[in-house]
């Protein structure tokens, strides 16, 4: 109960006293900025499965980058782009629905990553687990710069493609006739998803990035009904989940990425149940209001229906 009895020590001191916590918080906020604005379109377009598949499909890129000693971010980005290209190619060349193309490449890329890793010695395992589950507390200055760039790319992309995404989400046929180039817009969205996943690699890791990509936008949709507003609320909710997640991890020594992901999903469930309860309460109030006869005032409660009826109809 320290967070209630000693709020300053619980909520603020970990950040004021520890530079690594400040960097972790900033990295988390940048990752959320990127995932929430892109994730809003993922949720609205029903592309959650694709988001999950992309998050896992970057594994071979990471593995190859590790082995060759190159940039993990670049490896993940290339793997994600290869997967995006593959999905588009299968979509254009076959009568298969998108989910089949995504499922095939999801399994294929994940399996490829595991096969590449299985050929290596155990020295990579520790580093790789940090990428799979995140290492937000070990973030350096260069990582922050990379996160800032990827967040800027996501924000810029979402602003530039706002109208094509709107038209595409509303009706793909109309989008084409309105000159909004739906195929290009779809491809751009896939690239932005890949970019967001790369942005979150060090924060929550590839296996948990889905929680940030879908969690805050899905929660925001329960609360607001306009797309720009949904993005803004998703960012705020994501920041809240990140802040609480990092603090819980700090005080209770839990895995930071997983705790943030858990907070994001927990927030969604809390809002969902809170909303359902509020709706039930409103309905109960309406029913009570409907039962009460008009103009009946009594200090002991509403007048009995029979007496009210007799007053209005003396015969």
């Amino acid at each position, binding site marked *: 109960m320290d967070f209630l009895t000693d709020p300053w020590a619980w909520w603020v001191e970990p950040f004021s006293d520890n530079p690594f916590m400040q960097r972790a918080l900033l990295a988390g906020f940048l990752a959320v900025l990127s995932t929430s604005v892109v994730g809003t379109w993922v949720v*609205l377009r029903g592309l959650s499965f694709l988001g999950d598949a992309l998050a896992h499909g970057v594994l071979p890129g990471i593995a190859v980058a590790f082995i060759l000693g190159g940039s993990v971010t670049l490896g993940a980005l290339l793997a994600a782009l290869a997967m995006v290209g593959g999905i588009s190619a299968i979509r254009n060349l076959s009568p298969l629905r998108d989910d089949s193309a995504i499922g095939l490449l999801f399994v294929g890329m994940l399996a490829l990553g595991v096969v590449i890793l299985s050929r290596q010695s155990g020295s990579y395992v520790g580093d790789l687990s940090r990428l799979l589950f995140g290492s937000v507390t070990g973030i350096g200055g260069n990582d922050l710069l990379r996160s800032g760039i990827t967040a800027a790319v996501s924000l810029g992309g979402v*602003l*530039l*493609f*706002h*109208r*094509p995404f*709107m*038209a595409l*989400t*509303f*009706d793909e*046929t*109309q989008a*084409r*006739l*309105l*000159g*909004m180039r739906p195929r290009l817009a779809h491809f751009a969205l896939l690239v932005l998803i890949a970019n967001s996943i790369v942005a979150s690699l060090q924060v929550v890791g590839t296996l948990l990035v889905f929680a940030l990509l879908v969690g805050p936008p899905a929660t925001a*949709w329960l609360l*607001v*009904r*306009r*797309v720009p507003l*949904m993005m803004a609320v998703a960012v705020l909710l994501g920041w809240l989940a990140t802040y609480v997640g990092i603090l819980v991890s700090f005080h209770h020594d839990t895995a930071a990425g997983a705790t943030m992901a858990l907070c994001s999903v927990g927030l969604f469930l809390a809002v969902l149940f809170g909303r359902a309860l509020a709706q039930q309460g409103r309905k109960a109030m309406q029913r009570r209001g409907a039962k009460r006869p008009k103009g009946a005032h009594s200090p002991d409660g509403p007048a009995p229906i029979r007496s009210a009826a007799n007053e209005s109809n003396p015969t």
Partner: protein
Amino acid sequence: MKFPRPSPPASNAGVKVRAGTVSEVREDAGVRVRAGAVPEVRAEKLCVEFGVVRALENLSFALRPGSLTAVIGPNGSGKTTLLMVLAGLLQPSSGSIGRRSSVAYMPHQNGHGAPIPLIVAEVLVMGLYRRLGNYRRMSAAERERLTLAAERLEVADLMRRQFSEISSGQRQRVLMAQTLLQQADLVLLDEPITGLDLASRRRIMDVMSAECGRGAAVVFSTHHLDEARHGDQVLMLDNRLVAKGPPEDVLTKENLETLYGERVIHGAPDCDHPADRLLVLDEHAHGRRLETAQQTTLQ
């Protein structure tokens, strides 16, 4: 049910117009028609095949600027396929179709049921996307046009409502206003009046006439033969062109029998026009359903 067109004014007495066509409205409104500026769309021997199924076979026709064309035919006769080919959304298997400068297409509204968080105003703005591009803001004139279109279709008071939460008739009118905002030379409407009340149908027919008055070639598919009679030409489809031409030449007893079957036409009460027979037959059936419902309620 009829949608009367305004009579030509006395000043236009010298203008030769065919009664009951959009030309009348055009002349009446004093709108300078852009006929000639936009070439007519000519389709030659159009065929569309889906595997072994031939959806359209050997269709040839022309769409003049400023004309209203009704496409009629039973379910599965290729009406939507034809509109999609005209819109450029579907490539014909063979045959050719002339170049269309700008096309607006209003699909049948069943596809717009997804509960995405969009308000009516946002759906209307999409009608201006082609002109606005990816990021240009609306000018004052475009804002005014949007308001005008919303008022013409009587959806101005719905602007802040969620599109997924308004009625299907209101949605139809919003989509019509969006189509209107595109100011296209070829306007394609897939069953724009199906399922609408009388006032909404009248409103949409008026707007279609006004679009013709602007110089656009308007093509609409319909199951309402009485509304098809207001077109300048009717294309009667049954996967092939059963008949084409002015309504009085196409909506004949023989053609309707070919299209809908002899039994349906002869089962209807006597009327002056075969198209009315179908309408009256439909109304009789509706009346019988009402009577049955009333009797059931009384029992």
